[in-house]
């Protein structure tokens, strides 16, 4: 009986998040689509023609999966951090906190919101990419599971950022100074095999490398010279999900940044 009630609560958060994403589509869906279209035009079309091939693929083909993944990462993160911090700032988070809805469902509901926006933007960016290059998905399940799980990882990361954040600066610092460098250095625009050995080793400490690499493998397939073994990518992504979800639960239970 209680599970049924909790599922209604979860459904409420998910529906509320969906409506929020759609209500402010000019902030949530349009800007990333325009940004990614510019990336395709400038890096893929104009500069990419001069670069030639990367790991045996046209540069445009090579960066398309990376750009899709980059948009999924930033939008999953951005959705949860802004929605949850907005609720904290406006105090309407209290509506959920005083209700009997379990903490785990509050987290899952917000992660679902991040997932929705991440995948929606990813879908739109994929459509844009098809105007510039051909994408024959080689491993559908690898592609779908990688993008899905990666979106969860960064939704959870956004949730934790929102829990700790005390002002709007705090929700901008992590995306600017941590997320953006990790994404740009995560093999979106280049293969880490191009780097000297030392920097290759350093790059392998960046979890985004595994996510981008696995997603690129899913789309481009066996012809791609693998930067990273696919199994390692899954281990790391799932490991991060478990770690970040546990931390989120702990923060909600102790009330860090939420309860006095």
């Amino acid at each position, binding site marked *: 009986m209680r599970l049924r009630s909790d599922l209604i609560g979860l*459904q409420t958060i998910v529906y509320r998040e969906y409506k929020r994403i759609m209500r402010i589509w000019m902030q949530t869906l349009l800007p990333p689509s325009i940004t990614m279209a510019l990336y395709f035009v400038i890096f893929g079309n104009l500069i990419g023609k001069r670069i030639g091939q990367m790991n045996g693929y046209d540069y445009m083909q090579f960066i398309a999966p990376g750009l899709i993944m980059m948009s999924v990462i930033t939008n999953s993160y951005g959705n949860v951090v802004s929605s949850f911090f907005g609720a904290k700032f406006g105090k309407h988070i209290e509506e959920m*906190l005083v209700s009997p809805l379990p903490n785990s469902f509050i987290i899952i509901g917000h992660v679902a919101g991040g997932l929705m926006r991440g995948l929606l933007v990813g879908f739109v960016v994929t459509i844009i990419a098809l105007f510039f290059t051909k994408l024959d998905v080689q491993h559908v399940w690898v592609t779908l599971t990688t993008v899905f799980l990666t979106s969860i990882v960064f939704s959870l990361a956004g949730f934790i950022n929102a829990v700790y954040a005390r002002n709007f600066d705090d929700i901008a610092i992590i995306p600017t100074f941590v997320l953006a460098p990790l994404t740009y250095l995560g093999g979106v625009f280049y293969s880490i095999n191009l780097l000297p050995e030392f920097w290759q080793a350093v790059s392998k400490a960046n979890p985004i490398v595994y996510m981008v690499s696995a997603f690129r493998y899913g789309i481009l397939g066996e012809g791609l010279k693998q930067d990273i073994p696919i199994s390692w990518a899954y281990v790391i992504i799932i490991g991060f999900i478990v770690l970040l979800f546990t931390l989120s639960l702990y923060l909600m239970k102790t009330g860090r940044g939420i*309860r*006095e």
Partner: protein
Amino acid sequence: MASDDLTKILISMAQQSDGPGMILMTHSVVVSSAHALLESPFSIVKPRIGPGKANNPMKALSISGLQKTYANGVQALMGIDLEVEEGDFFALLGPNGAGKTTVIGIVTSLVNKTAGQVKVFEYDIDEDLDGAKACIGVVPQEINFNQFEKVSNVVLNQAGYYGIPRTLARERTEKYLRQLQLWDKRQELSRNLSGGMKRRLMIARALVHEPRLLILDEPTAGVDIEIRRSMWDFIKRINAQGTTIILTTHYLEEAESLCRNVAIIDEGKIVVNDQMNRVLRELQFETFIFNLCEEIKQVPVLDGFVVRQLDEQSIEIEIGPEQNLNQIFEKLSALGLTACSMRNKTNRLEELFMKLVDSKNNHDGAEQ
């Protein structure tokens, strides 16, 4: 508890209320009133259970040894004991910073307690927090709904968080928005509502899961008199239907006219806890307003009574414990005045506070 301490609390509360202006009062009456309060059974620090509570009915709220120390070291609650019976209309009063909102925060799980036990309808918040939460509806002091949501969605979402199926949630949303005169505004963005409407929206939201205990934390702050009265009529009906109400307010006449039991909290301790009528009776003085049949040019002098002129045909007179109404009628007749009608001035609690303010101010002035 020291006389000065109690006076300080009452003064603080009176200064926060929108009470009447300066009231003339002899120092002896003030002191006797304060002493009556201090010596009365309800003024002891340890809360006592009134006679009506002997049958041991279900407790809507049971708090024992509740303590809260904030991270900055401020000790907001210092071991509070409090019980509210099911069906009660209970006033929790106290000056700003006394600890009222901290108590409410702990009961509603928005504040973590440091020590003590809280039970809501026998659900211990340490053992079954979700069970306790399901019983409570809360109307907080500050506006805390999403101002970018439509009015109906604010209520519908809250119903969802409490696990109410969508169809039933829609029915109840309509029911409570209609009852609180917000149905016509259901499609408006909630930020566009007036202050009074926002307060009513929070009441509708708090009621949508039909809680057994409704906590109202200063729900009428900044609301005009007409809306305030309609809100209280509504809340009284909810209470009559069996919902337990806990109210904090700075409008003391509201507490006086609405609540059956009262607790006063100050500096993290309960200093008064008893039935409202016993508290008021212990004040030992009352004020009556007399409408005279004749116009008066100056305040009539009634030996032994404090008289104030309200307008050309109205006066108010205070009656102490040793005085009675017959004495007043006799004295008025002797002056050739006739009382056409008479009524009790209801905000006695507020009166007491204001008198103590005057007393304190006079006392301070004399010392200087």
